[in-house]
């Protein structure tokens, strides 16, 4: 416990607009949405139609290939709209929420007195199984497997991320109940990854778990990095990962019998006037949160952080797993001799620009690509921000040529998009790293199954 594992590679991008540790009050959003695009590798089938009334926890859709995995409604209310895209693919299922949320009661229970199947069955029944993810592939866990271990990272090192200690405050019991439920699901251990820079909250000290402390720049808070540092995933092994706030939701299920999908979301970024925390429900519409609190300019709204988040509109919906809503300037102006200019207000890990002279300056970054896509030329730059004993460029190249055996040999089982997000940020050739990795993971998933 006391031994701190050092993560040496990585970088903290210091952005403006860090949130103050206060909960702000905004009007409660009236609509909520579930987006199938938040769950890669899954074919959805709807269980409801427009106009249906649902309670929180009622199934909205399910996984066509594994019908036991359903996606519970985060709120009660009326199915307002099913937004479809090309080939009638479902983009969003929107729910108009009741003023007072009514819950389907799945019955409270002490997880330590339940069997593994009972714990599993309860989570599945309540439509909460999608909260649990698995490596390899970074997808919703396969409930038919027993994972080697379950990993919960109890801090987020991404830019402007929510402070775990602040969020868990007041929900200690729920967190611990959630962890106890998870302990029933594995023959191995539940591992907790704690922040080694601070003295972590007492809430995270749960008997029976294995605690590790990590110190280092982002991506030290990613479960993938932590697992790699402690016990790397081998071919054929499965490790489940659950977010800290997802553990709290699972805890609530066992304490109250309800799918209470409330989470703390941090609203941050340079364009936010008063960056604060909000208590909202999964899939909330962001309009009311932003109203009167963002700069009047061309903004980019991101559900999630600037590295892995999804671009949404100012009236869009939070994604399923996101604890963060980031607003940065959109940018988009051509830069006259931009490749020659000093570019002082931009981020770079390269000393070919001069930003290294002020490592602690908080930057106001926009979404500019700062260059065009090229072939791989520069070598050794991914390795500076990728704390895995894996050759990142060679792995990406094996994906580009769809060589499954090479991907496997090069360690694709251990990584998720978020682990390679910084590679994408620092890439001189502007290679779409995260999309490429996702393609590789999907390809493996199709060929080999989860």
């Amino acid at each position: 416990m006391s031994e701190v594992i050092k993560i040496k590679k990585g970088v903290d991008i210091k952005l403006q607009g860090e949130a103050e540790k206060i909960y702000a009050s905004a009007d409660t959003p009236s609509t909520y949405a579930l987006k199938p695009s938040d769950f890669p590798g899954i074919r959805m089938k709807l269980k409801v139609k427009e106009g249906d009334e649902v309670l929180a926890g009622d199934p909205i859709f399910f996984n066509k290939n594994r019908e036991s995995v359903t996606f519970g409604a985060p709120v009660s209310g009326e199915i307002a709209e099913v937004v479809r895209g090309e080939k009638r693919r479902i983009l969003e299922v929107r729910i108009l929420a009741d003023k007072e949320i009514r819950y389907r009661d799945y019955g409270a229970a002490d997880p330590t007195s339940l069997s593994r199947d009972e714990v599993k069955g309860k989570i599945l029944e309540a439509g909460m199984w999608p909260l649990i993810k698995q490596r390899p592939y970074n997808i919703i866990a396969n409930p038919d497997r027993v994972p080697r271990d379950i990993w919960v990272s109890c801090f987020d090192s991404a830019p402007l991320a929510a402070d775990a200690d602040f969020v868990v405050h007041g929900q200690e019991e729920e967190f611990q109940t959630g962890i106890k439920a998870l302990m029933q699901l594995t023959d191995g251990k539940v591992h907790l990854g704690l922040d080694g820079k601070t003295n972590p909250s007492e809430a995270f000290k749960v008997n029976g778990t294995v605690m590790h402390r990590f110190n280092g720049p982002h991506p030290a808070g990613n479960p993938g990095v932590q697992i790699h540092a402690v016990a790397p995933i081998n071919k054929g092994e499965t490790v489940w990962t659950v977010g800290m706030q997802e553990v709290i939701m699972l805890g609530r299920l066992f304490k109250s019998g309800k799918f209470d999908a409330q989470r703390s979301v941090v609203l941050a970024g340079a364009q936010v006037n008063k960056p604060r925390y909000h208590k909202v429900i999964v899939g909330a519409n962001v309009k009311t949160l932003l109203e009167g609190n963002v700069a009047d300019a061309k903004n980019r709204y991101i559900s999630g952080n600037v590295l892995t988040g999804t671009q949404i509109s100012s009236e869009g919906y939070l994604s399923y797993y996101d604890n963060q809503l980031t607003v940065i300037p959109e940018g988009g102006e051509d830069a006259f001799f931009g490749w020659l200019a000093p570019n002082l207000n931009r981020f770079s890990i390269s000393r070919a620009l001069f930003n290294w002279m002020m490592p602690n300056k908080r930057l106001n970054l926009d979404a500019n690509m700062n260059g065009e896509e090229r072939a791989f030329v520069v070598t050794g730059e991914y390795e500076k921000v990728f704390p895995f004993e894996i050759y990142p460029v060679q792995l990406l190249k094996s994906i580009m040529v769809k060589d499954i055996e090479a991907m496997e040999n090069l360690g694709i089982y251990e990584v998720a998009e978020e682990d390679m997000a910084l590679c994408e940020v620092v890439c001189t050739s502007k290679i779409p790293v995260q999309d490429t990795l996702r393609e590789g993971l999907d390809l493996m998933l199709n060929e080999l199954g989860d």
Partner: protein
Amino acid sequence: MKLFKNILDSVKPHFEAGGKLEKYYPVYDGFATFLFTPGHTAHSGAHVRDAIDLKRTMVTVIFAMIPALLFGMWNAGNLHYSALGLAESMTFMDKFLWGAIKVVPMLIVSYGVGLGVEFIFCIIKGHQIQEGFLVSGMLIPLIMPIDLPLWMLAISVIFAVVIGKEVFGGTGMNILNPALTARAFAFFAYPTYMSGDKVWINTSTDAGQSVVDGFSGATVLGDYATGGEVQYSTMDMFLGFIPGSIGETSTLMVLVGAAILLYTGIGSWKIMFSGVIGALAMGLIFNTFAEYAISPEQQAFMAVPAWQQLIMGGFAFGIVFMATDPVSAAQTERGKWIYGFLVGFFAIAIRVFNPAYPEGIMLAILFMNVMAPLIDHYVVQANINKRKKRLATVKAA
């Protein structure tokens, strides 16, 4: 800048789909993105991106070569006037301008022809123009002798760009360093213009001028190879007051460039450092076994102190600017150590053992360019084996 923007915007419709010059869009795009880094924003993946791009990387390398280029111009003039016995009476500017008049046309030909070929390929393939040749175009004149006819330079450039690069798919895909491909081509196609003791110093005379008695235009390496007496001091070699290819002579100026590359992190310190170690290792081996040499010339060359090998010929220039080319070098960090070491090791070996090629660094780098994928293969394979071993221990437990 508004003016440029307006011009670009006004001609853009001709180059877009349906326009008269649609085929030439890559050329338009090349110029437009040269003037303005396009303001497009991230639409997938990370929302913030590093300010570095390939143009910035390449231009940093060009900056690093400028000291060597400027010195090369002055040195060409200085050697020319020295050969005529006029070095004392000519000013610094006279010498520099004389060199500039010879070197600038070579730069123009190199860039003009090289970029021309690249444009043609991009138009045919509909690719964007990539920046790789910005560095090669400057490197090629710097590694040629001052008196190389411009048409030979042009053919070498065409060979390098087409056979060295475009047939493999363009920037980032080539196996050999394009600049060295150009030099190797010229070396084997026009040996009389690329080697010997007549090509390194221009001795053309105007009316009333004549070459001084006892003049020799041989390079230091040439002298050693043929057993001639070396007429330059160690300090001359370090500062660069010696005959040689245009940009390679001054170790000092190369070190200035190396400082820029190392400081910005664009040149791999691992390759440069291990290259120097490799050269010193070979030099020391030669020192040790000099007495077993088969000829007195060879013995003299083998006995040259190992550190002096570093400042002779093109070793410094090659290891700093060409061995570090990320595309043709080893691409794994561990591989770079091995690659650099062997470049240095073989450069000195070829230089000393093969009097036909007194400049060993060119062949050493080209040889190691070919070997680099093999080195990487074994480095990556070691990583794969480690993973497999880990799996085996887990299964056994």
